[in-house]
């Protein structure tokens, strides 16, 4: 009995990580091409609202997801246009968009707050769901969670094992070289930024139609997740597998927070909700600190064996962004 509860809890962790995976992989695509889409937090809120409202009005969840996808792609198109064509600061435009989309979500979603909604159901896969343990964990999920598993693998293969993926890497690392080899750098950046935005746009309705079904306005509890997504993209070193690991870790910690709440009665729930953020800072610290100059100096004074171990740990954790991230491409 006890084991079943834990197993169902862990299956829930996989499901609640699914939107984070969609958004993180979307952002990974955009950043791999060299464009930071900082609007993720606002996009997720706006698409969560838009997808929910669309699904409620049409009584059709598929339309909810499609609307989320289109809205996410449109926001990303704005980011792409201003950063690629107009060469504006990606951070500035992304920040304004993230704030504006958030307020837009609260403003337009206001009449629908607390409204009875629709949601997607769990679809057990025949035969496979009867496998002990793994069946409950992996094969009694909703469609979007299955898709999140597939997305991780497809995105990984696309980026690292296919020709277009190699081109994508080239565009983000050395756009001039990619250009010389015949890549249309700016067009590829447009495509991947908008594709990434569409994936982020799917993650919003995944909350409002599944993981945290409904729309509750400012108390939906979604504000902030988009920033975690951006941090997991860095933690994931722009690699879908490592990003997925980060997303599962995040979902697991959130679940543990919930499970442990009755034990930690002294801590108000609002404080526990903020727990991911110090963790976010710490993880970013761990993946970056190995590059700091002063760390080298301190390490140089340690005995050789210890130094080697620490350097190895830092190198394993290390996460280096695509070299051309955030910079516009100028044809010579």
């Amino acid at each position: 009995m006890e084991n079943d509860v834990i197993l169902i809890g862990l299956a829930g962790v996989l499901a609640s990580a699914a939107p984070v995976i969609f958004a993180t992989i979307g952002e990974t695509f955009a950043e791999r091409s060299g464009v930071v889409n900082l609007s993720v937090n606002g996009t997720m809120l706006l698409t969560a609202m838009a997808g929910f409202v669309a699904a409620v009005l049409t009584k059709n969840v598929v339309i909810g997801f499609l609307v989320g996808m289109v809205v996410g792609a449109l926001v990303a198109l704005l980011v792409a246009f201003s950063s690629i064509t107009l060469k504006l600061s990606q951070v500035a435009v992304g920040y304004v968009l993230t704030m504006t989309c958030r307020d837009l979500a609260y403003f337009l979603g206001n009449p629908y707050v607390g409204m009875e909604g629709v949601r997607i159901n769990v679809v057990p896969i025949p035969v496979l769901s009867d496998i002990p343990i793994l069946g409950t964990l992996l094969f009694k999920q909703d469609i979007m969670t299955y898709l999140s598993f597939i997305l991780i693998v497809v995105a990984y293969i696309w980026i690292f094992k296919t020709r277009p993926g190699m081109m994508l890497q080239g565009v983000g690392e050395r756009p001039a070289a990619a250009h010389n080899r015949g890549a249309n750098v700016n067009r590829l950046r447009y495509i991947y930024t908008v594709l990434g935005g569409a994936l982020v746009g799917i993650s919003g309705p995944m909350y409002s139609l599944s993981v945290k079904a409904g729309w509750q306005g400012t108390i939906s509890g979604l504000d902030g997740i988009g920033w975690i997504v951006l941090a997991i993209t860095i933690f994931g070193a722009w690699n879908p597998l490592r990003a997925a690991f980060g997303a599962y870790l995040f979902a697991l910690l959130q679940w543990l927070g919930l499970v442990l709440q009755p034990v930690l009665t002294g801590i108000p729930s609002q404080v526990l909700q903020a727990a991911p953020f110090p963790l976010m800072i710490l993880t970013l610290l761990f993946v970056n600190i190995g590059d700091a100059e002063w760390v080298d100096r301190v390490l140089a004074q340690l005995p050789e064996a210890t130094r080697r171990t620490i350097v190895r740990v830092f190198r394993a954790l290390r996460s280096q962004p695509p070299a051309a991230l955030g910079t516009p491409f100028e044809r010579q």
Partner: protein
Amino acid sequence: MQHDEKRWQNLGFQLGAVVLALLLTSLVILAAGAPPLDAFKQLLKGAFGAKMNVADTIVAWVPLLLATSGLLVTFAAGLWNIGVEGQIILGSIFTTGVLRLLQDSNLPPAFIIVLAVLGGMLGGGLWAVLAGLLKTFGGVNEIFGGLGLNFIATSMTIWLIFGPWKRPGVGSMSGTEPFPESLWLPTLPGLRLSIWTVVLGIIALVVIYFLLQGTYFGLKLKAVGNNQRAAFLLGIPTWQYMLLAFFLCGLFAGLAGAMQVVAVYHRLIPSISSGYGYLGLMVAMLINYQAVWVAPIAFFFAALNIGSIQLPIALKLDSSLAGVIQGSLVLAVLMVEGIRHRLVRK
């Protein structure tokens, strides 16, 4: 002659951006099922309709003025101090802490208030330095460090309100126990507005203006912001300057937080910073980081915030409309400016 023409052209583009933003917002209001003109009228009425509304707009203007002024320093150094929101919160926390510590002492109230405000400034400054240290020594981008620290600051406030600083009996979202009136900054009769805060806000802006425009320090700061490596090679200690920029911005944000406690709420409440830090970033972007424009644009944004409070009652619209207008405006101005540049280049 040529110069004049260019100036008119610029003005034309900027007016175009404002019109574009107004059109966008009108569409959004229509989508929410309300007549746009009525909504704009309500906003104006809410911000300036009566003496009390004007006073409230000025009350909102001061922290925005302080936060934006501080942000000009970090922007000059090329830093995206998104953590300014949390720095305001820490200002409020430190101010509340000092007031709680000294409220039963025999010190004169004016002296306690001064100490509390200084404490608040220090709190904001330290929180900013933390983001700065994470950046300079930990390699954590200030956007993520700052944002994380913002969320931590918020939950710290809530923990204090429900934990160590809770009201006698049971803690509540309405905040900590209000301080005795002797520890309030004097306000204008019948209004929430204290003239002291306005004076401090204006002094802060003037200080920042001269610091950035008229001092060697400001010049070096801009050198760090423009080209960190070149500045370093020229002998400017870059990381020290970056930390100093963070600290200065934190001082101003902390002052804003202190004002929220001693002049506006007289206690610590969960949403003490009211998003003025995030809004300050928008103001700074809209004015293209020019100190001369801080006061009027911050005033306009404050008016939108206060004006929108009426919307739910008058038109059943959510008050987040203010944010939609502010955001569309900044976005339109940024993009139109980008389009102008592109056209000029060709």
